[in-house]
């Protein structure tokens, strides 16, 4: 049983009046003190009476488990989905059962992560729950930021009618869900591999082969399918001509995300890491949809990588890693490139998403990559803009840092990397086009 501030004040007042009454020999004071103490004692007696014993289970397990009959309050929860994209919604249904025969006035609060917004309904309910009855609390939460989240525990509180004392229990009922970074629809990333794989994919690589885009005309060779015959060209030239197509092929794409602690500079919802993860998710979806194999490397306090693969499953693997990317540590890019270079095919496109701050090895790392003929694209969400917008950076500081950043970007461009200083208002497609020189 816990005391509220009100009951503590009442008790302190009662004791003070009682003692003062004895000192001043004032029966009036002593009487008031005794009434106040009796009032408190009776309220405490009633609160203790309303005991809360509780247990928590997931709704799916409710039928299979019957070993909780002695406990009086039971909570079960069901989520509409365990995986959503940023700004997505999750419907939560919390079922509360009172197994006791006595009716109870309960305050129930289902704890949701702080960043979540309650869109519909309420996660905080005050209710009178009759004996052997159950009720359902439904609410909808909106998930504005990527990450791994947990709903729970359920806090149940019973208090006396005057709010003097309460019994509180946390029902250890947890449900996890994942918020993926939101994705932007990309029509063309303008990135092609110089060393395509032999499997047929969606990228045309300017070599004749199986594909959809016209490449050139050549003379018919026995065995060519009749559907490839170009009848007009045959009529014009008098020779049997067939159409050749550009070979569509798959490539390896490597996405490198900078998740060092500096990448979280700026407001929670507008910082380099947020933009980088969204861009990586969009790019991964785009490349995987054209049957490329995509690998992901995130580096912060450690280097986490997802091996190259194709398909929808790979997309979810990448999205899960992106959802869990935390801004920590300060691993230099050079360490990352040294680690991954032996495992990547030469000439594969590498896309680096980094604010390009606080890392003296960036130039060396990019030089290494370029020297090995990798096609390097750097999208750099500028944390200067976030901080300047949030008025955490004064004009002078902003100008100085901007100059420094401009110099670094120029130098990286000088090494042959495609670099784009990605400002917050710019769409990803525009930033990509800018980086690739369109």
């Amino acid at each position, binding site marked *: 049983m816990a005391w509220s*501030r009100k009951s503590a004040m009442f008790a302190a*007042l009662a004791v003070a009046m009682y003692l003062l009454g*004895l000192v001043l*020999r*004032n*029966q*009036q*004071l*002593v*009487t*008031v003190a*005794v*009434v*106040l*103490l009796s*009032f408190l004692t*009776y*309220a405490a*007696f*009633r609160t*203790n009476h309303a*005991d809360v014993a509780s247990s928590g289970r997931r709704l799916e397990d409710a039928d299979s488990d019957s070993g909780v009959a002695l406990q009086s309050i039971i909570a079960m929860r069901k989520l509409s989905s365990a995986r959503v994209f940023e700004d997505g919604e999750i419907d939560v249904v919390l079922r509360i059962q009172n197994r*006791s*025969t*006595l009716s109870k*006035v309960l305050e129930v609060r289902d704890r949701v992560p702080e960043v979540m917004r309650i869109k519909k*309904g*309420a996660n*905080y*309910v*005050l*209710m009178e729950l009759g004996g052997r009855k159950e009720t359902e609390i439904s609410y909808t939460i909106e998930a504005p930021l990527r990450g791994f989240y947990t709903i729970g525990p359920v806090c149940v509180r019973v208090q006396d*009618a*005057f*709010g003097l004392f309460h019994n509180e229990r946390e029902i250890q009922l947890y449900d996890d869900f994942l918020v993926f970074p939101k994705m932007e629809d990309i029509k063309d990333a303008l990135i092609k591999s110089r060393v395509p794989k032999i499997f047929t994919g969606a990228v045309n690589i300017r070599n004749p082969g199986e594909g959809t885009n016209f490449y050139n005309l050549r003379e018919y060779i026995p065995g060519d399918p009749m559907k490839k015959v170009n009848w007009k060209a045959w009529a014009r030239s008098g020779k049997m001509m067939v159409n050749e197509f550009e070979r569509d092929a798959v490539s390896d794409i490597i996405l490198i995300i900078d998740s060092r602690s500096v990448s979280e500079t*700026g407001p929670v*919802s507008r*910082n380099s890491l947020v933009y980088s993860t969204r861009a990586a998710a969009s790019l991964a979806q785009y490349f995987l949809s054209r049957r490329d194999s995509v690998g992901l490397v995130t580096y912060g306090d450690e280097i986490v990588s997802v091996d190259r693969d194709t398909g929808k499953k790979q997309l979810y693997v990448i999205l899960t890693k992106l959802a869990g990317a935390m801004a920590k540590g300060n691993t230099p890019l050079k360490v990352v490139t040294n680690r991954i270079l032996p495992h990547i095919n030469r000439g594969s496109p590498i896309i680096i998403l980094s604010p390009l701050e606080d890392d003296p090895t960036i130039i060396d790392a990019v030089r290494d990559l370029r020297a090995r003929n990798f096609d390097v694209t750097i999208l750099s969400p500028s944390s200067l*803009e976030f901080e300047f*917008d949030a*008025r*955490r950076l004064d*004009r002078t*500081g902003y100008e*100085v*840092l*901007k*100059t*420094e950043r*401009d*110099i670094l*970007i*120029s*130098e990286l*461009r*000088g090494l042959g990397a495609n670099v784009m200083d990605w*400002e917050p208002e710019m769409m990803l497609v525009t930033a990509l086009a*800018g*980086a690739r*020189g369109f």
Partner: protein
Amino acid sequence: MGTRNDARNCISRSTRILGGEIIADDVKTDGASDTSHLYDGKTVRSSAPSRKKAAGRLKSSTDIPKDAIPEVHVPSWIESFFGGPIVSSMKFLPANRTVTNLQVSSAGILVLLTALTLLFTPVSGTAWFAIANLIGIPIIGGVIHILIMVIGAIGGAYGIFQRDQRALLVSYVAMLLVTLRFAGSKVEFGFNLLPEEEILQKVLLIAYAVFLVMYFELTNGIIRFSMLDTSIRTGEVYVMGEGKIIRQYYRAIGITPVVAGVVALLTLLINLIIPAMVGIFDSVQANRLRESVELTSVYGVALGTAMVFTVIAAAFAVNLPLRLQQMQEGRANK
């Protein structure tokens, strides 16, 4: 959320870069379109954003993002001392029926309490009475005494109808302050119209004390239910079976003061209860006890309090409330 080094650090770092050999003179970055040497002869239309441009653009959008500045409440020293806001600054929506009922009840109780305070609390024995006598103008003591009661009543009325917690706090303090007097172990009244009989006097005293506690509770209830109602209407909390919850409060407000009054009566009448119990065995000792000054004085009340609350403590020690609940549940299961 990350932070950045201050501008001075940034300037020094930048100067180092600008002053060192990192500036690549051979990289031409003069014009936005003059980048063909970098991209295999291709002209790149985008260039590194110029500071001028950025500064110009930023002028038009320097609104602070919503999440950039967290709401911070800096507690005052008194709040820090008590560990939180003493008086809530919550703005209430117009009073609903429950709150209005509580306001009317509180006002009624306040009127009765003021009348009883006037009857029960003489000016004699108070600090202001002593000071007024000391300076030779005894009437000032009476004026201050009445003034404190008026402040208590008016502050209370204002607090009740305006739902102002500060005014209520002032009223509580005034109502308690007026009772602080040296009484010398004898119940005295402000007026001589009240009965001389001991039991009646004590019943009246208990009535006064109960009204005082009820006044505290009901006015507190006004604020609590106003907060609850505001939270319901703003969607912060959802209430199921509101009527039942309010009925339970009304029931408690009816029962608890009666129970508290009975316990207090038992405590105050200990000078009669103990002799009656002793009288079963020895009537002479019982008579002696009845005439004992200690038992009839405030120390008798202290003894009574100790005895009654020992019984209550024993009930808690054996976990009587839980046993009662189990008994009730067992009965319901049958």
